[in-house]
């Protein structure tokens, strides 16, 4: 009964989406407020029905109703409750349902909080949202219905893939989807602007918070996925340039560029056409990501869907939306008016440079990800494009971008003073040189480039700090005045500083982990001691334990340093009976932001066990950086300007802006 209700709710949502995709847009065309207002009610009702449908699937999983195929394949009666729930989106059908739920959520948010948008813009935006939603409801209902029943219900389910039975995976997909799907809003706004043929700085003010929100979630989602891979896959790697990872990195790069270009458009009314194009491209890359992951075209550890009809369907959605939006763009872009002028050396110029490098880097990732697929289709040759390709292409493009990061906020709008900015960055430069010297003197082994990269990272962090110091006048004023100024500083300034510093922090982590990581791989018997990076690790013994739905082999280690006992570490190997698969549970010990990492291999006949032990210096900074970036984004999102500025209607605001300048 619940399954049928969930299925029916989804069909109703599709019907609502069809109404919403036609009626409000006709209303906007004919200038009929009654028709335009339909969008608001249908968007909210759609959210209600999709939520009901999702709730139905969750209920089926929680109550272990194995007569439903989806539950049978991805759940098991012995599975802990939390994984019964996360199992809902740990599979293809469920995760697509989560995808449309989030899409409906964003549509609902625009409907509920978009009262201050011009009526026709809101109607068009929600109309475009409904096109996307309708396409994906159809996709789910036709090719991936999660509510299918099995004729003869089995007694127990097959269980969720053990690798996915992890708390990191509980949070990672929703976060990532909030990011992916969040970009649909800026896409819809861009299409609506093209349909209306009108775009102004107020448009950018409406779009920026949505883009920022999506970007924050995507940043956290990617970081979370990377940390999950680090501790769950058992080889201590945190980024593999796997196509599935690239699929989330591409919208992130384009979205980061969009955030910055929307800033130029909002402040200076320039780069309009480019911003619209970026909005379209960012969401197109999100769709491409969905296609890559969901169609099973990739050879990848992530691909847990494998059905060609689905692939063709998503490819069709992809072609229609990307092709359609780009055609609309080509037809209408020239009618958008030219924006403000600026000199090459200026804040705008710096942001253009940022966009140039980000989109080019995104293009190299795009080529590296799709080239193997294209080559296989065209010639039948199978190749893999791995880390060496991306290090060679992505790296050199990111270095100049990172060098430029501290300069951006120091330059004035319209016409900047590069020499002045360089002078103000003198302190940061000196800090960077000291960092290079210290890293050089302290480092043993590793690449000669590593100290330089550390210097670059310190330059970015120090540059962000010196921008703040300068703005609050810390050096020229008494501390009390500076503090008052710091409080008065717009939150977006703080946001910029945190986000930029986050890049530097992440870079330090990346460089230290890859260059000065030490490892031991070999066999150990009980009471053996391994010395690694100043720690002694003693294997106390092995034992068997029974978990809720697995058996595990646990190794107990005692970690000490200089004779002093620090902690116990218990890595384990779990064997899941329902699936006959096993996972490696690495043990992690954080010392500051560095970590000791132990993962188990197989036991040998003579009672020993193979182990991998890593010492990863400053590794936690890799994920702390993105968290800082997301925090910066959050600060920026809470800026008064974005909340207060947006409600004014376009005409009044345009007048206001001119008056202000």
């Amino acid at each position, binding site marked *: 009964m619940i399954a049928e209700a969930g299925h029916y709710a989804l069909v109703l949502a599709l019907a609502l989406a069809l109404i919403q995709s036609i009626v409000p847009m006709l209303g906007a065309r004919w200038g009929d407020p009654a028709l335009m207002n339909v969008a608001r009610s249908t968007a909210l009702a759609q959210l209600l029905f999709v939520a009901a449908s999702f709730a139905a699937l969750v209920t089926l999983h929680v109550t272990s109703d194995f007569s439903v195929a989806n539950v049978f394949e991805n759940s098991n009666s012995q599975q802990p409750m939390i994984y019964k729930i996360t199992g809902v989106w740990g599979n293809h059908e469920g995760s697509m349902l989560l995808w449309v739920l989030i899409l409906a959520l964003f549509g609902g948010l625009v409907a509920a909080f978009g009262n201050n948008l011009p009526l026709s813009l809101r109607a068009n935006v929600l109309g475009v949202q409904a096109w996307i939603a309708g396409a994906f409801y159809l996709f789910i209902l036709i090719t991936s219905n999660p509510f299918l029943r099995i004729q003869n219900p089995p007694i127990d389910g097959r269980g969720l893939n053990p690798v996915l039975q992890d708390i990191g995976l509980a949070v990672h997909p929703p976060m990532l989807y909030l990011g992916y799907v969040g970009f649909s809003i800026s896409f819809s706004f861009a299409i609506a602007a093209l349909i209306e043929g009108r775009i102004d700085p107020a448009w950018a003010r409406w779009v920026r918070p949505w883009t920022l929100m999506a970007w924050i979630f995507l940043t956290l989602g990617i970081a979370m996925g990377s940390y999950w891979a680090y501790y769950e896959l058992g080889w201590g790697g945190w980024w593999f340039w796997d196509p599935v990872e690239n699929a989330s990195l591409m919208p992130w790069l384009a979205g980061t560029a969009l955030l910055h270009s929307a800033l130029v458009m909002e402040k200076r009314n320039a780069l309009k056409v480019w911003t619209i194009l970026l909005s379209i491209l960012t969401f197109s890359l999100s769709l491409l990501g969905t296609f890559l992951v969901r169609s099973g075209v990739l050879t990848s550890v992530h691909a847990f869907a494998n059905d060609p009809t689905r692939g063709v369907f998503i490819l069709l959605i992809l072609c229609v939306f990307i092709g359609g939006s780009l055609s609309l763009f080509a037809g209408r872009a020239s009618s958008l008016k030219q924006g403000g002028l600026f000199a090459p050396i200026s804040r705008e110029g710096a942001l253009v440079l940022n966009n*140039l490098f980000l989109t080019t880097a995104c293009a190299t990732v795009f080529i590296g990800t799709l080239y193997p697929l294209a080559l296989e289709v065209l010639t039948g040759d199978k190749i893999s494009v*791995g880390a060496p390709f991306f290090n060679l292409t992505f790296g050199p493009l990111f270095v100049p971008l990172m060098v430029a990061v501290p300069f951006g906020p120091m330059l004035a709008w319209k016409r900047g003073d590069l020499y002045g900015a360089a002078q103000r960055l003198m302190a940061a430069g000196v800090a960077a040189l000291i960092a290079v010297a210290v890293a050089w003197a302290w480092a043993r082994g590793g690449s000669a480039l590593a100290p330089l990269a550390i210097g670059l990272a310190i330059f970015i962090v120090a540059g962000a700090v010196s921008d703040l110091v300068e703005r609050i006048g810390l050096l020229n004023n008494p501390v009390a005045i500076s503090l008052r100024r710091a409080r008065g500083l717009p939150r977006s300034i703080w946001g910029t500083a945190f986000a930029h510093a986050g890049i530097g922090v992440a870079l330090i982590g990346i460089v230290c982990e890859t260059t000065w990581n030490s490892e031991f791989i070999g066999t150990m018997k009980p009471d053996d001691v391994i010395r690694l990076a100043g720690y002694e690790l003693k294997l106390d013994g092995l034992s068997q334990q029974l978990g809720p739905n697995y058996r595990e*082999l646990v190794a107990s280690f005692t970690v000490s340093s200089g004779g002093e006992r620090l902690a116990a570490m218990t890595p384990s190997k779990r064997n899941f009976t329902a699936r*006959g698969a096993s996972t490696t549970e690495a043990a992690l010990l954080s010392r500051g932001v560095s970590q000791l990492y132990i993962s188990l291999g*197989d036991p040998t006949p003579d009672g020993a066990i193979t182990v991998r032990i890593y010492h990863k210096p400053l590794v936690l900074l890799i994920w702390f950086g993105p968290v800082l970036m997301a925090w910066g984004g959050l600060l920026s999102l809470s800026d008064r300007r974005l909340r207060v500025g947006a409600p004014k209607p376009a005409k009044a605001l345009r007048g206001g802006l001119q008056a202000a300048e």
Partner: protein
Amino acid sequence: MTRKQRRLTLIGCSLAVLAFAAGLVLYALQDSIVFFSTPSMAAEQHIAPGKRFRLGGLVQPGSLVCRGDGASFEVADGGAKLPVSYHGLLPDLFREGQGVVAEGALDASGTFHAETVLAKHDETYMPKDVADALKKQGHWKDDYDSKLAAGISGKSCAHGDG
């Protein structure tokens, strides 16, 4: 500067960056991509020793020899076999008779030295390259999946029930 000059500066910069990126991509595509082969493809193509490639196939039953710090085994695709030696920990799901993808290079004696070994991800997943290659050569057995589902698995380096 006039609007035109500014636009030209912008376009010039963009083209320079794009050309730089295109150069990098072309250079990287020449040097750092890795081809995929099965043992019979490797035998046909006479891959030179030292050239990196990905070797895919099934782990030949009865060929696995475990050492403390690694293992040696044979990868077969029905047509040919290739001895592989690997230093390091084999993945959790590595078993005789199952699909595997190894990346590395041949030495002068014709042994494949693997630097990384990927086993299939769970009991229903087979590396796509391997499955495609086996199907193409007609060695794909339809009962392969059902055998796996029934939990018949070969020897691994694991002992006891770990």
